[in-house]
């Protein structure tokens, strides 16, 4: 049934990356009548490929020995990173950036947290002012511009939640399509603690179906959400939602195992296709009239930098020199508590209640930064036994076994999800020496946490401990905040803006330098929000696709000669 295009057919839109953003762009554009090809590095997996098998996830990451098999994410043995904290250092090999590497991308294995940005997330620079050592800036769009597309995402994909339950929520034009998921013990404890403290807990919005929706089954509460693919199709990944819709149009080809190494341009500086490796490492040239880059905040700038040419000596779309700069990551803190009774927290979805009382920055706190909090059980049997026990627990023997047996069903983690300041020297670049298994330059990550971000983390650690106390924890602990050693939310590296000198794409996601090149993913972010980016990435994708379709229909996209 699926359409198959020839390499020599210049399709209307070639989308690189079929993940959280790219799959939406592909579906919207093919539904609007355009021919679309999606090229993705990763495999095309299906529900029957997903297993309850903890050895086949990222969570068993361990210093050697390490027998975890990353099946849904990038494999650093094939695509290594190098890492350094500051530009003066020589980067050393280290697994740092992690991303979903299959059709559906990170939405296949994500937790499903689906927070809209608030109005303030788009205007932090004008509200807060400058922060020393950071490039805080306003977005070129507002919450009101994006609101219709948040609603579209929630209804198209299927999101469970309770509109109006949070006094901090921004205005919305429609309620959630599905009621919230049933509350778990962690949610009940969060509610009890938060109310005691005068906070305002509310049901977590989740991209997981609480009831059957548009031909898909409701969640069966099997518990294998975060890090796993959903066997039920109840998680609203793009794999379970818009990918089948795109294929049904008969105008969209999903081409997995296709690793793009260069975006090609013609003599006029317009994109005319891409060079990619197939699963046998054979090179192909696929023609296209327009290209949409939707890889992620790490692979997108890497591909643009690898696409340098005589016309674009700094890399494609990089006249500003900002491709790869202002790299932002998932910042957040964790505190842990144990409770008297068994909670069966390994069942069902991870998060059922959240708190947004400290979302906004508050000058009274004395530093920039804010965030949200949730309560969950962060573990599966193996990862919990390796990393989840209280400090001071014996590492082996009867004492170890006793604590492991008692705590597995009695532990709650309080997470905060916080702001990450955009800092120009934090970046994704090409490593000058190291190559990946295809002979392409490895990603070099430069990242150092800003001092204000550390203050924010410490603030939230204290709030989390208070919450555990108020909820009646019998034991609680936290970990000191240190430097980031890995990142899973990769943001900000092709920031959007109105000025071509200080941004990479315009407010419609078109590259300032290349008229038929678009970039839509976490790299478009100007500021980080509160470390729950998927909802906004997807709203941006719906909006960008809408703008692209209009421009193409009006002849507004200059295509190659």
């Amino acid at each position: 049934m699926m359409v198959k295009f020839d390499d020599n057919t210049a399709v209307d839109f070639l989308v690189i990356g079929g993940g959280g953003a790219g799959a939406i762009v592909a579906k919207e554009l093919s539904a609007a009548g355009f021919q679309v090809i999606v090229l993705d590095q990763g495999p095309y997996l299906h529900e029957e490929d997903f297993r309850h098998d903890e050895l086949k996830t990222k969570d068993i990451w361990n210093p050697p020995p390490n027998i975890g098999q990353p099946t849904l994410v990038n494999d650093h043995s094939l695509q290594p990173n190098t890492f350094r904290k500051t530009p003066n250092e020589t980067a050393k090999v280290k697994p740092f950036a992690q991303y979903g590497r299959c059709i559906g991308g990170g939405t296949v294995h994500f937790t499903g947290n689906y927070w809209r940005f608030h109005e303030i997330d788009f205007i932090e620079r004008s509200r807060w002012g400058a922060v020393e050592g950071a490039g805080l800036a306003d977005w070129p769009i507002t919450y009101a511009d994006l609101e219709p597309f948040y609603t579209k995402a929630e209804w198209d994909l299927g999101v469970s939640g309770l509109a109006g339950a949070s006094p901090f929520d921004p205005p919305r034009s429609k309620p959630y399509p599905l009621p919230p998921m049933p509350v778990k013990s962690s949610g009940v404890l969060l509610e009890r603690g938060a109310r005691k403290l005068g906070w305002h807990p509310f049901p977590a919005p989740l991209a997981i179906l609480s009831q059957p929706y548009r031909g898909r089954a409701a969640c069966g509460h099997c518990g294998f959400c975060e890090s796993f693919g959903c066997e039920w199709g109840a998680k609203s990944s793009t794999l379970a939602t818009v990918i089948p819709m795109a294929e049904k149009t008969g105008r969209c080809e999903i081409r997995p195992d296709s690793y793009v190494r260069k975006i090609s341009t013609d003599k006029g500086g317009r994109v005319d296709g891409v060079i990619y490796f197939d699963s046998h490492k054979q090179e192909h040239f696929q023609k296209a009239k327009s290209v949409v880059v939707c890889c992620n905040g790490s692979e997108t700038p890497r591909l643009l930098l690898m696409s340098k040419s005589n016309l674009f000596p700094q890399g494609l779309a990089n006249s500003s020199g900002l491709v790869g700069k202002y790299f932002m990551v998932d910042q957040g803190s964790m505190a842990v508590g144990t409770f008297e009774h068994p909670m069966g927290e390994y069942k069902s979805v991870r998060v059922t209640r959240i708190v947004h009382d400290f979302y906004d920055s508050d000058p009274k706190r004395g530093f920039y930064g804010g965030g949200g909090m949730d309560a969950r059980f962060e573990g599966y049997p193996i990862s919990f036994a390796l990393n989840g026990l209280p400090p001071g627990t014996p590492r082996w023997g009867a004492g170890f076994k006793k604590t492991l047996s008692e705590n597995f069903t009695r532990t709650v983690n309080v997470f905060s999800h916080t702001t990450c300041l955009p800092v120009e020297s934090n970046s994704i670049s090409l490593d000058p020496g190291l190559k990946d298994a295809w002979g392409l330059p490895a990603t070099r990550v430069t990242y150092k946490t800003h001092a204000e971000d550390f203050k924010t983390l410490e603030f939230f650690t204290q709030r989390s401990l208070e919450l555990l106390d108020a909820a009646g924890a019998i034991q609680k602990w936290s970990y000191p905040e240190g430097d980031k050693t890995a990142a899973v939310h990769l943001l900000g590296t092709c920031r959007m803006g109105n000025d071509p000198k200080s941004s990479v794409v315009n407010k419609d996601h078109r590259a300032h330098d290349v008229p038929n090149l678009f970039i839509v993913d976490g790299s478009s972010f100007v500021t980080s929000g509160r470390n729950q980016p998927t909802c906004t990435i997807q709203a941006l994708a719906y909006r960008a696709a809408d703008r692209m379709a209009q421009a193409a229909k009006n002849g507004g996209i200059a295509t190659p000669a």
Partner: protein
Amino acid sequence: MTPVDASRRQFVLTSLSGLGSVWFATRWPAILAAQQQAQAAEPGKFQFFSPEQAANVEAIAAQIIPTTDTPGAREARVVYFIDRVLVTLDKPSQPKYVEGLKDLHSKVQGLFPGAGEFSSLTSDQQIRVLTAIEKTEFFEYVRYHTIVGFLANPEYGGNYKETGWKVIGFESDMHFEPPFGYYDAEENKAQSNDGQI
């Protein structure tokens, strides 16, 4: 999973309301097939360890997760898991075991001159030996493999009959219904009582 279990689950799942039941009826057999965890074959020959090495590794594992009022690493057949991963997923760790077991032998002789193998020591003596080597890389490897073997899917050769999962209170199932645990059950009850008043 026995056929009775399978048909019970089929019943539970197909009796769910609405569209879900149609979805399950058409797709559950495929899911079941994919999820069924082939139980490890009955223990037979070791593929990597000699019988003597296996006895020593099993004895270490049984001190890391001992048999107490509940089963431990021995009952979960963790040594079979370790033997298998050393020839499959974790070949690079082979030399650590070969060297580590030699060093263990020396340590045993040093602490208990004239004693035989580690596995033949009393439990107290074994704990003394392991306490003396607990900071070594070898011990870290055995600890990691023991924990993983105790709790990984049984198809990898350990966690025999889901022993490890039962010890920690983890139920392996494809479907649960609320309430999931103590506090949400308590909350649901409180709410329904409120309703009656």
